[in-house]
């Protein structure tokens, strides 16, 4: 038996607490009591008592900690008093195993270690790379961004197991005696043991084999406990640091920490915890803030494990905002059921696309004409007369004029359309104002903000150091809701003139930045309409297409259900031969049709909500404006300014055209 024993802690006693996911109502009183009676630092106590997993609250002599324990018991905080001087048994690495009904025998380097059935087993599943906290952080941040803060749920042990298996998993198994002392310990790395011993349970996946082994051990043990908090729990001697691939030293350090963690977990199991009265456990209280409190703890763990995670600042901001903001409105629709955004529709020829192609085609033809003019005397003369007579400039002036009047017409349209209430929207051109709400779990691609619309434009510097657009991606295929005091209505932003209020710029690889470095050759600009912002919408309200199943479809569905229900089918078996003949089936069919018809007639006429049957969108020849402003004057002022500038340009161009014409004529 080659067990190495290692002393890791001092002579004092440790007071280990299970952290609160949600601080209870008297939490502040508890903190004050701990500070006043035992001179404990309030900030450190708050940090130790909130978050996920276990933490050491304080250490001292058993007598001094006994009084703290009494106070914690009064406030129903689950805690343990364990000896500070612990011996940890280093687990032996396994290479193969044999499984029988009586025991599991692990083949180690120099000996065999057996785990008899019906024993007491502690399993510690951990990530040796030290990146578990980062991974968790990413998961919580993205979950909060996609589903919204209110819908984010706390992570279960199954979630943690899945996340650990995606990193560098290690499984430590400890066989404990009746008193809770460690008798044997083995360490299992996935892919480093022969899976043949698993028999029929063996698979081609090394991580799946690890899970199967864990299930086998769990199945055979009389008492089993799985710990997945390594890297998250704040316990002495068990801190983990990030170890890059090939960093053997870092990996060894983490495995040593894991050994100490296993020893401490075994000791905690052995020591009787001071558990709050049944049914009053504060840790089970569900709260929308719970995952964020847990995030704070993960953040803490991530910062302990070494370098800064790029997500840390985002997560810290998220936690700060969540704790600063008032509790979410309970009457609001939960966002957990928000579906994923639909995929963008490819193909089809939109008007914008046709226009851009026409402009491009025109430009190509012009260039071709200019090139041809160099070689063809007739074309050359025609081009000369076109420009010299001012006809070309006049054409440009007309384009400016058309643009100017379209801006002014739009301004008039906005001014002439009164604002409707959503409750009483009529079909046709409408103007509505309200708050933007998501219909789908849409998140902006760079800043990760829950939004109803985004437009991402990528740029690249050309030879002349000017930014050129390389691609534009927008979420205009994703509808959203507009909400005012009277109701909600769905908005389809396709082909809309969108004026988003939030604009961010950054370089590839950056989440968001305020200032772009001058040496970057690429950049992105993201415009977003964040959920909850006030919007002005001018568009065409129309009824949605009905997608109710017809009676025929309902009958078909009912017949399919009948075929899958042998008990009901038997009621149509008139001769009782166990088979449905053609005549019997006809009767069944007729009865089903009658039943469906009766149900359709009896069904109460369901009155639809506004957003269920009205859609504001683009209609041919009508404008669709979505602007992040509730001040109409600001919007019309902008269109007026643009119109005036274009008018001035147009007048200038016409003046130049007249001058050229006069010059040409003389």
């Amino acid at each position, binding site marked *: 038996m080659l067990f190495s024993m290692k002393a890791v802690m001092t002579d004092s006693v440790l007071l280990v607490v299970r952290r609160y996911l949600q601080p209870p109502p008297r939490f502040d009183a508890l903190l004050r009591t701990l500070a006043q009676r035992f001179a404990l630092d309030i900030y450190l106590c708050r940090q130790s008592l909130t978050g996920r997993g276990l933490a050491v609250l304080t250490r001292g002599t058993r007598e001094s900690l006994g009084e703290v324990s009494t106070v914690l018991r009064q406030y129903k905080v689950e805690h343990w008093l364990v000896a500070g001087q612990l011996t940890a048994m280093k687990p032996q690495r396994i290479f193969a195993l044999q499984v029988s009904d009586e025991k599991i025998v692990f083949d180690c380097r120099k000996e065999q270690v057996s785990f008899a059935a019906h024993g007491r087993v502690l399993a510690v599943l951990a990530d040796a790379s030290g990146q578990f906290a980062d991974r968790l952080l990413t998961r919580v941040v993205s979950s909060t961004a996609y589903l919204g803060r209110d819908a984010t749920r706390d992570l279960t042990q199954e979630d943690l197991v899945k996340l650990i298996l995606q990193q560098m998993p290690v499984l430590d198994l400890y066989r404990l005696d009746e008193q809770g002392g460690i008798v044997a310990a083995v360490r299992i790395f996935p892919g480093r043991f022969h899976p043949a011993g698993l028999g029929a349970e063996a698979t081609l996946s090394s991580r799946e084999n690890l899970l199967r082994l864990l299930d086998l051990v769990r199945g055979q043990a009389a008492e089993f406990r799985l710990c997945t908090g390594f890297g998250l729990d704040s316990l002495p001697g068990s801190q983990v640091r990030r170890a890059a691939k090939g960093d053997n030293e870092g990996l060894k350090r983490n495995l040593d920490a894991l050994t100490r963690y296993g020893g401490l977990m075994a000791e905690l199991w052995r020591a009787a915890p001071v558990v709050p009265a049944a049914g009053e456990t504060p840790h089970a209280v569900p709260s929308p803030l719970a995952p964020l409190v847990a995030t704070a703890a993960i953040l803490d763990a991530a910062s302990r494990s070494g370098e800064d995670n790029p997500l840390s600042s985002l997560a810290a901001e998220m936690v700060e905002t969540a704790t600063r903001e008032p509790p979410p409105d309970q009457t609001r629709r939960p966002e957990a059921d928000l579906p994923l955004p639909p995929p963008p529709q490819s193909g089809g020829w939109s008007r914008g696309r046709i226009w851009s192609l026409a402009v491009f085609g025109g430009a190509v033809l012009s260039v071709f004409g200019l090139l041809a003019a160099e070689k063809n005397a007739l074309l050359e003369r025609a081009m000369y007369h076109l420009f010299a007579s001012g006809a070309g400039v006049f054409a440009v002036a007309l384009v400016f*004029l058309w643009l100017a*009047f379209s801006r*002014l*017409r739009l301004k*008039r*349209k906005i*001014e*002439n*359309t*009164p*604002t*409707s*209430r959503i*409750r*009483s929207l*009529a079909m*046709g*051109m409408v103007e509505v104002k309200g708050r933007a709400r998501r219909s789908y779990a849409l998140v902006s691609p760079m800043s990760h903000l829950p939004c109803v619309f985004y437009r991402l434009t990528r740029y690249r510097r050309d030879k002349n150091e000017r930014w050129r657009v390389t691609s534009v991606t927008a979420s205009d295929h994703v509808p959203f809701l507009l909400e005012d005091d*009277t109701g909600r209505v769905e908005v389809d932003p396709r082909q809309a003139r969108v004026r988003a209020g939030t604009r961010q710029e950054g370089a590839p690889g950056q989440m968001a930045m305020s200032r772009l470095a001058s040496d970057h050759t690429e950049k992105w600009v993201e415009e977003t309409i964040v959920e909850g912002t006030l919007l002005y919408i001018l568009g065409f309200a129309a009824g949605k297409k009905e997608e109710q199943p017809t009676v025929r479809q309902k009958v078909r569905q009912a017949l399919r259900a009948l075929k899958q229900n042998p008990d009901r089918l038997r009621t149509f078996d008139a001769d009782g031969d166990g088979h449905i003949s053609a005549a019997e089936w006809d009767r069944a069919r007729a009865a089903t049709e009658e039943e469906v018809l009766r149900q359709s007639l009896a069904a109460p006429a369901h009155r639809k909500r506004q957003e269920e049957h009205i859609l504001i969108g683009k209609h041919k020849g009508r404008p669709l404006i979505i602007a992040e402003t509730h001040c109409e004057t600001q919007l019309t002022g902008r269109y007026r300014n643009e119109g005036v500038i274009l008018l001035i340009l147009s*007048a200038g161009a*016409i*003046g130049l055209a*007249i001058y050229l*014409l*006069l010059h040409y*004529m*003389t």
Partner: protein
Amino acid sequence: MTLWIVLGILLLLVIGLTLYVIIIYNGFIALKNTIEQDWSNIDVLLKQRFDELPKLIKVCEGYMQHERQTLEAVIKARSMVNAARSDEQKQQAQNLLTDTLKSLFMVVERYPDLKADAAFQQLSNRITEIEDQIADRRELFNASVTIYNTRLRQFPDVIVASLFRFQPRTLWTIDPEHRRDVEVSFAHS
């Protein structure tokens, strides 16, 4: 040469002015049509309310044997709506119908059995919902009329308006009776 330049500038001004007049004229036409549409949109809801009334009266008749007068007032107001021809007559008839309906709902308070009736609840909710929508659309109509009337009096639109004889429209007004202060008496009879 100078003559040509002057002529060119004059031509520019004439073109610009014509385009501007066209925009203003088209704006007036669009506004007039918007007002007509807003008026028709109110009509749509009034028709819905009109269609719901016979059902409501039928449900009420079963319970309110002693309130013939109130029910008859509603029926009479409904007939007046049907008979109204001009916009003003329609407005008055609709206002009267709104008033009689309010009286009916006040009287219903005395009949707990009727209030508890599922059909009555459904119908009264529906009518209340329509009433809210009518109120919203009246506001919208008045907003459209106000925009139109304001433009009629604004410079330079007033020139185009007088040139093409655009007339101001009347707002949807309520019965002067409703402007009176409500007398509240806490004395028990």
